């Protein structure tokens, strides 16, 4: 069988099948490959009515995902590929693009979602989430489903959104083909297992394979048009970026440290647009590693699994491969057993969840192992209890058009005292203290299509950011200042005017040159009453509303727990007051802005 021979089992009409076969016969393998990629990309185009597209002989599999930083999205796409490879008609669709009315037609549903905020759905999933939980949700007796959750067990509401969907689908009468899996930040392995199980489950119930494509022996690749000339850079294959400059943005006397880090992407082939983030793969603080090894009486040279690189010395594994600070419930559970510690065991019991949270909130692994010392632990057992070291994301603070070979980051250095120790954030301290100019840092680009400048530069924009939340707006303005652009309005907040006005000189210049039309600032600690960006928004309610009416896009970036909800509430109130609407109507207006991508958020 050659690459060009295919066997069709519907859904194409005979005529179409014949034409396709004809075409394929005339193609070189490269051309065929390109078309396969093209078609793969094509089917993933938004707003395709997936149900209609797959005229069902057998029920196609809809893979719906809700994702903020792209993990769930990537898994969904991988699932789609694997399903197709198994001969299932499958389509991965962002919840934000999915028309809820079509849900009742869906027979096979795989739902993958992360959780944000304090147990909230990712922004892009909010609309579908509400629909499903609302009164208009259809009965789904004909539907079989499975849910995968992505989350982070250090959050109180671990994988809450996945849990909600799972339960609701059941309430609506859908039948579970596979139990939900709640994945922690180390999601790769459990997610892969879940995908496998779910596809097997669905395939087992499917009568006939929908499409059989047998392209062997070539592996499926991305469409040619998107193949980069250099080796692909991603989370698994980061690019070593040289630090070109690194400086503290806060003036003397500030109680914060915010670093501006300029990295060289020269030779990486990496591309990004304003709104994207840079993933940084940090290393742990060697002192923290040493302290942990010493406290547990381990041998630094013991060989332990180091992830993709096989077995490596413990000290190295702890430095590069595992989180050695973040305390997880799983660690406490395991450690409680090893330490035979009753207090820890008690804490690990499900009914003591709240207490566990409180305990865990301001403690790290070193606190537990110091408080409950044990003897005779080996390195392998230790790393078995740890999570893999996670990359950290930083909003790109530069425009690649303005700085072709550079990536600028604005990094708030996490430092806080707790239980008589000064704690430092892994990646922020790594970037700002342990790596300096001329050192390299492994990075990759994390796209964020949900945080994008309007296609038409003439469209007005309102940018709202506090602290490092201003980072992407620096990129936005660099991009917009290159050509002629519509009105731009920036709201910025931080603690003190004199020391914490991040990039002050640049904003002043942009204002002078006219690229930035307006800027309003809120410095929370310069006066007796705390003053935040949402207060400024409310002060200028009339103008904000007028900008919205002129088609302005609104961007919010920064703190997810306070800034985002407070700004959201302010926007709803502004729309209600100025547009003479009641609260619910105003919420609807904002929701529509969100759906139309005129209200975008990048909050963390």
């Amino acid at each position: 069988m050659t690459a060009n021979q295919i066997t069709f089992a519907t859904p194409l009409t005979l005529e179409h099948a014949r034409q396709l076969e004809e075409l394929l016969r005339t193609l070189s393998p490269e051309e065929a490959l390109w078309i396969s990629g093209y078609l793969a990309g094509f089917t993933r185009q938004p707003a395709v009515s997936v149900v209609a597209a797959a005229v069902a002989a057998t029920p196609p599999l809809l893979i719906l995902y809700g994702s903020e930083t792209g993990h769930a999205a990537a898994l969904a796409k991988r699932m789609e590929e694997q399903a197709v490879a198994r001969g299932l008609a499958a389509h991965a669709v962002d919840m934000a693009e999915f028309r809820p009315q079509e849900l009742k037609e869906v027979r096979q549903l795989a739902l993958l979602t992360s959780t944000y905020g304090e147990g909230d759905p990712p922004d892009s999933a909010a609309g579908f989430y509400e629909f499903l939980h609302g009164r208009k949700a259809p009965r789904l007796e004909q539907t079989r489903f499975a849910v995968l959750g992505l989350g982070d067990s250090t959050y109180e509401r671990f994988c809450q959104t996945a849990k909600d969907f799972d339960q609701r689908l059941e309430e609506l009468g859908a039948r579970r083909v596979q139990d939900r899996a709640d994945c922690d930040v180390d999601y790769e392995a459990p997610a892969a297992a879940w995908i496998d199980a779910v596809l097997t489950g669905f395939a087992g119930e499917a009568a006939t394979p929908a499409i059989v494509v047998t392209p062997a022996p070539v592996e499926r690749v991305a469409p040619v048009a998107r193949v980069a000339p250099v080796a692909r850079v991603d989370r698994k294959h980061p690019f070593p970026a040289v630090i070109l400059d690194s400086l503290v943005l806060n003036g003397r006397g500030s109680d914060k440290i915010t670093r501006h880090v300029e990295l060289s992407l020269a030779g990486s082939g990496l591309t990004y647009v304003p709104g994207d983030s840079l993933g940084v793969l940090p290393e742990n603080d060697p002192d923290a590693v040493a302290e942990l090894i010493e406290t547990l009486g381990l041998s630094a040279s013991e060989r332990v699994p180091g992830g993709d690189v096989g077995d490596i010395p413990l000290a190295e594994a702890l430095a590069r491969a595992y989180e050695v600070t973040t305390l997880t419930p799983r660690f406490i559970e395991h450690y409680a057993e090893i330490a035979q510690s009753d207090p820890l065991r008690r804490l690990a019991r499900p009914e003591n969840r709240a207490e566990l949270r409180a305990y865990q909130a301001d403690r790290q692994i070193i606190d537990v192992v110091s408080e409950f010392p044990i003897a005779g632990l080996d390195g392998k057992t230790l790393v078995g209890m740890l999570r893999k070291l996670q990359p950290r994301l930083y909003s790109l603070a530069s425009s690649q058009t303005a700085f072709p070979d550079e990536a600028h980051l604005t990094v708030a250095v996490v430092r806080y005292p707790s239980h008589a120790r000064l704690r430092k954030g892994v990646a922020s301290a790594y970037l700002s203290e342990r790596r300096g100019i001329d050192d390299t840092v492994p990075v990759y680009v994390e796209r964020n299509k949900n945080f994008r400048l309007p296609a038409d530069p003439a469209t007005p924009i309102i940018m709202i950011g506090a602290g490092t939340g201003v980072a992407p707006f620096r990129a936005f303005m660099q991009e917009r200042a290159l050509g002629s652009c519509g009105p731009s309005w920036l709201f910025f907040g931080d603690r003190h005017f004199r020391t914490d006005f991040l990039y002050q000189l640049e904003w002043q210049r942009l204002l002078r040159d006219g690229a930035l039309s307006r800027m309003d600032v809120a410095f929370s600690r310069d006066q007796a009453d705390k003053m935040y960006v949402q207060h400024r928004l409310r002060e200028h309610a009339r103008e904000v509303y007028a900008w919205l009416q002129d088609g302005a896009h609104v961007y919010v970036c920064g703190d997810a727990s306070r800034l985002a909800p407070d700004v959201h509430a302010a926007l709803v109130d502004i729309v209600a007051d100025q547009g003479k609407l009641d609260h619910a109507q105003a919420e609807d207006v904002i929701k529509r802005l969100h759906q139309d991508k005129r209200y975008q958020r990048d909050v963390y």
Partner: protein
Amino acid sequence: MDRDRDRDLSQPLERLNPAETVKALSDYLRDGIAEGLSDPLTGAIPGDAPQILKFHGIYQQDDRDLRDERRHQKLEPGFEFMVRLRLPGGVCQPWQWLKLDAVARRHANATLRLTTRQTFQFHGILKGNLKPAIQAINAAMIDTLGACGDDNRGVLCSPIPERSALHAAMFPLTKRVSEHLMPQTRAYHEIWLDETPVAGGIHAEEPIYGRTYLPRKFKIAFVVPPDNDVDVFANDLGFIASAEGDTLAGFTVCVGGGMGRTDNEPATYPRLADVIGFCTPDQVVAVAEQVVTLQRDFGDRVERKHARMKYTIDDRGLDWFKQELERRLGWRLGEARPFAFTSNGDRLGWLEGPDGLSHYTLFVENGRVKGEMMEALRAIAGLHDGEFRLTANQNLIIANIAPNRRADIAAVLDAYGLGETRPLSLLRRNAMACVALPTCGLAMAESERYLPDLLTKLDAILTECGLGDTPIITRMSGCPNGCSRPYIAEIGFSGRAPGHYNLYLGGGFHGQRLARLYLENVGEDRILDALTPLFRAYAAERQVDEHFGDFLLRAGHVREVLSGTPSPEIGRGPG
């Protein structure tokens, strides 16, 4: 004779320095200030408004120690404001002191700076604190209007605490002159004190100054011989008291003093005032007003470096000046009276007047009141029912101490180590430095922060030469403007670049003679190398009671600079 009028007020604004236009268009000192204060994106007051702000007693500055660092941090300069009080004669009541102390702690950098013109300066006031600070100062019944700017500045008056009757006659005149020559605009009250503007009533606001005020700053001093402790000859206008006992007969009038010069511009130079006649106490205000209007009309408004009255006089002649003044007065000045000065320093420590009141003159190094000394003075202000008088040597007199308070105040002074036993060399007691870095925008070298160290090194040499008990006047300025009046010191320094100074030698001990440029642009080593042999020679060859400056001239180390003439820019060096 009426000279060429092509550089003065008679010309249209376009022909004059742009600063004149800014003043003229300022709507009598209003324009841009209120807007600038409320601009949240900068700690500065944008545009030309800072020039206008000076008339309100406020200088926009930035912390120069942080300038490079902040630029690198993508932050604007660390803008902050200096506020100078209008305090005629340097007289301040204890309750006012307490309020000013509070302003310094709450709104400024927790220091009070006593200036070479008998007033206080606050440094490091952030824009947001400016209005509260000015309001708090005004609540102490002190204002800042006209403390800076192209107008009459703070009026000096010898503090003479031990001659209270004479001070009582002089001080009211000092105040009257100061008040008479204050800007009359309501801008100050509107902007800082929330006074509601009177509609349409702005045009007759400045009967003396007009809308462009003076070409440049203007300075007046009252002095009582034999102490020239206000350096009367460094002022545009000086009144030298003639007293018969404690009765004030009148004043010998002198005009045309000033220190400011610019390096490498020989057309700028320090100049001592010339005596032109005599007036009675009730003629003082008229003389002051007419000297001011004369300078208003004839001063150079094209070149600001040439706009002080000393140049008006040198360009047109002293005789012309006197004639024009008398024409304006409508009467002739009397014959100058003889006077004799013996020093220009302060008498530190305790003094007692014939009225039984005591006075303590406290040495304040370079005028900077801070830390422990600030604590001590706050405590004293709480005890004291007399006055404080600031001296033009940056020191402080706790004046009019009642007999029953003296022991308490002395106890506080002793407790803080500020009593008469405080170890201070004579060199240090007689030294002054201007503010310079980090606040002064014009500074080229350190001054206030450096002179104390240099004095320690000079003291070691003097002690070695056996000159430890000889007073020598040393003054340092961080740039050629000469705010510490270095050009009339026996040893003077003006900053040229970081760590580098011009060295001037041979000034008179009581401010009667200019010093000559001796070395140009030299660092500490060269300074010490040059002074060591001169000290040695002075120790070996001085005559009885001969001052160091006088010795340098007599022994031929330095040639005399004749008062009132342009000093040659490049000194001859030794000889």
